[in-house]
């Protein structure tokens, strides 16, 4: 398009950042206000979650820091007993909703990123092997993927979660809950990556540069890692972004169902579940604010992912 020349021959003094600013991708990005807003919101939530211990007025995971008498304070109204005012109110145990959301988003994002990373690494590895080796290895990996695809992700995650829970001794379950969650969401989501990477690998492995590398006697492992992998990462990035939104929602769903992280270390989904108990009695703020945060986060990440998919797809240009 307009800066095709800059793209192919970048000026010597510019770094990666300069190249990014000059790219088609950024040009497209800078012309879509909704995508800019989504990116901003995502960054703000991620930063807020990352720096939660410095931003949050108190640590909601530490029961000793709570005052029960502050419980059920409505937003922007003084508590009936203590007179304290909190701008998002407090929950049943006197946790500030604002602090709980920051820490909850931290757990949700941590689980989301870790699960996506786990799923991507597993999926990419299996996809590369299947695509490059072919034959029976390809058949076995892809049939497993097909079988798993026929089950909804939430079912697979629930199944893996249940099995892991029964294998872990009772006293370690609370500490292990978050890793089990990452494992179960990751394992339920690797298929997408494997299928995409496999099809790209099938196309790439017959290209001249791969053939050349082979003629030089480069090992299969090195060809996969240094030559093929960089060329199949584009689509993976797109799936990863959309996958992040899905993983956050899946984590919240599991926690909402009560099988995710324990209520003493609430994620956004746990906060919504706990608040849900009080919807009928009119304490709407306990569930509404975490729910709204989840909505914003999932929507922003999803919009970003969709945009990235369209922007990187040459056929849609």
């Amino acid at each position, binding site marked *: 398009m307009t800066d095709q020349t800059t793209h192919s021959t970048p000026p010597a003094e510019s770094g990666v950042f300069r190249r990014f600013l000059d790219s088609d991708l950024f040009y497209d990005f800078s012309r879509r206000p909704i995508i800019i807003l989504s990116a901003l919101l995502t960054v703000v939530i991620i930063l807020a979650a990352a720096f939660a211990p410095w931003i949050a007025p108190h640590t909601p995971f*530490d*029961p*000793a*820091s*709570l005052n*029960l*008498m502050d*419980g*059920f304070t409505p937003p922007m109204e003084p508590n009936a*007993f203590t007179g304290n005012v909190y701008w998002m109110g407090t929950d*049943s*145990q*006197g946790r500030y909703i604002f602090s709980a959301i920051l820490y909850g988003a931290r757990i949700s994002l941590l689980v989301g990123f870790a699960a996506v990373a786990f799923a991507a690494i597993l999926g990419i590895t299996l996809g590369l092997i299947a695509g490059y080796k072919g034959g029976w290895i390809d058949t076995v990996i892809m049939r497993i993927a097909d079988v798993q695809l026929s089950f909804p992700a939430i079912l697979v995650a629930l199944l893996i979660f249940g099995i892991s829970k029964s294998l872990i001794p*009772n*006293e370690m379950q*609370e500490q292990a809950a978050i890793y089990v969650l990452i494992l179960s969401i990751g394992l339920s989501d690797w298929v997408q990556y494997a299928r995409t990477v496999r099809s790209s690998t099938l196309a790439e492995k017959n290209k001249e540069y791969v053939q050349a590398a082979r003629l030089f006697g480069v090992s299969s492992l090195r060809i996969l890692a240094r030559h093929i992998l960089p060329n199949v990462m584009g689509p993976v990035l797109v799936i990863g972004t959309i996958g992040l939104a899905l993983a956050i929602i899946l984590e919240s769903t599991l926690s909402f169902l009560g099988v995710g992280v324990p*209520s*003493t270390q609430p994620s956004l989904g746990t906060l919504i579940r706990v608040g*849900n*108990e*009080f*919807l*009928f*009695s*009119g*304490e709407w703020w306990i569930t509404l604010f975490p729910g709204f945060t989840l909505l914003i986060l999932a929507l922003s990440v999803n919009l970003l992912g969709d945009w990235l998919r369209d922007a990187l797809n040459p056929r849609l240009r």
Partner: protein
Amino acid sequence: MKKTLRAVTLGTAISMIMIASANAQTLRWASAGDSLTFDPHSQNHGQTHAVAHQIYNPLIYLDLDSEMQPGLAVSWEVTDDPSVWEFKLREGVTFHDGTPFTADDVVFSFQRAQHPNSDMRTLISSVKEVRAVDPLTVHIETNGPTPLLPNNLTNLFIMSKVWAEANNVLTPQDYSAGEENFAVRNANGTGPFRLVSRDPDVRTEMVRNDEYWGMGEFPMEISRIVLTPIQSAATRAAAMLSGEIDFLQDVPVQDINRLNNSANITMLSAPENRTIFFGMDQGREELRTSDVKGANPFADIRVREAMNIAINRDAIQQVVMRGQSVPAGMIAPSFVNGWTAELDTVPETNVNRAKELLTEAGYANGFTVTLTCTNDRYVNDEAICQAVTGMLGQAGINVRLDARANSIHFAELQQGELDFFILGWAVPPLDSHYVFDFLLETKTPDTGAWNFTGWSNEEFDSLSRALPTETDLDERNAKIARAWEIVQDEIVYLPVHHQVLNWAVRQDIDFAVQSQNQPMLKYLSFK
């Protein structure tokens, strides 16, 4: 013309359906937790008895006003020998399977309830022998005079001997060992309803027993009962509001106002015969879940006192219970013999003093321990535990919370596996001895059945064990007072509050709340 005819036909059909449904009244009953078992002698557990009362009968039962009423016995009195009670049995009663009820069934049921597997045996530990004098007369001989024997029989259900023999259920289910027998999911009683289907924790269905001895005497307007446990508080309230259920036993405290304001729902409320408290294993050398090794912090009375004054019971009442509880200083509500306002005084909360006490006991940096809680048994049980976790944390005790279903909780508790646990206790005989007998006497095969604290006190045991046969009422009450004094001084348990009972019924239902939280559905009628 055709249209009118069709409308009339339709109208007639609808009204006929409505009449039919009025005659066949189904009661959809929901509670937070389910009955643990239908084996009537396996568990001494409130909700288990509450469900069993619809199917089985005891000799004597407590009516809606908690007054003793003749069940399968029509009269009971002490004979010339003060150690022998004579019970005259009801004539013409049959079990659900058609076999007639006789004195042999009473003898058999008492023997069964005295088996080591039975959780009811503590209640009748004073019973020496039960004799059938004739088919409708039973003599119960006790070890010494036992004036309060009838009070202990209100949840002791009578089973058919023939049925038990035929189905190989001569001994009660060993609940804590996870055993099942035929009587766990099947039942054959003499009660107002018969069991049709049983799916534990999901759905239990009963239909009216038209051969019931009380037909005509009680309203008996329900033809079918469907009992569905609903663990989630919001779902329970929603089910009641949407008319999906007709009778809700455990109304979430946060939804009382909402249900009260609904025109289709009547709220029934009364002080409940149940106290919620925490127990601590004081007898072990070392706790299972604590970072303190080689010593048991709970064995030190200073630690127990620190915990006692670290818990802010008024805050729990005001915030967690929304006023629907009475903060407690003892494990017995005001209508139990032995209760005094002084004993029930709530200790003043003082976190600084608690820290001092912990420092004196050598735990200046606190210690960790796991608190095990139910999340479907008592009103807001998990929230109470969360609040207490925070309060103890402020004093320096780092509590980990493990909340789970009551079926798991009680099985583990009875295997003696818990360091720090929640428990609720009702006192159906309305006398302090019941509390002493189950919760406080030294644990032996016959006493202290629910004493999982490892606490043992000789003076207390001798006072408590003298109570059943003490005939001088003043002397007896003096002993009860002294026994409570020991319990209070030793801080064996940490009482939290007495529950307030809240039931919700459809507005066209006429029913009264019973402080035992045992709905006797034979009394329920439709307006």
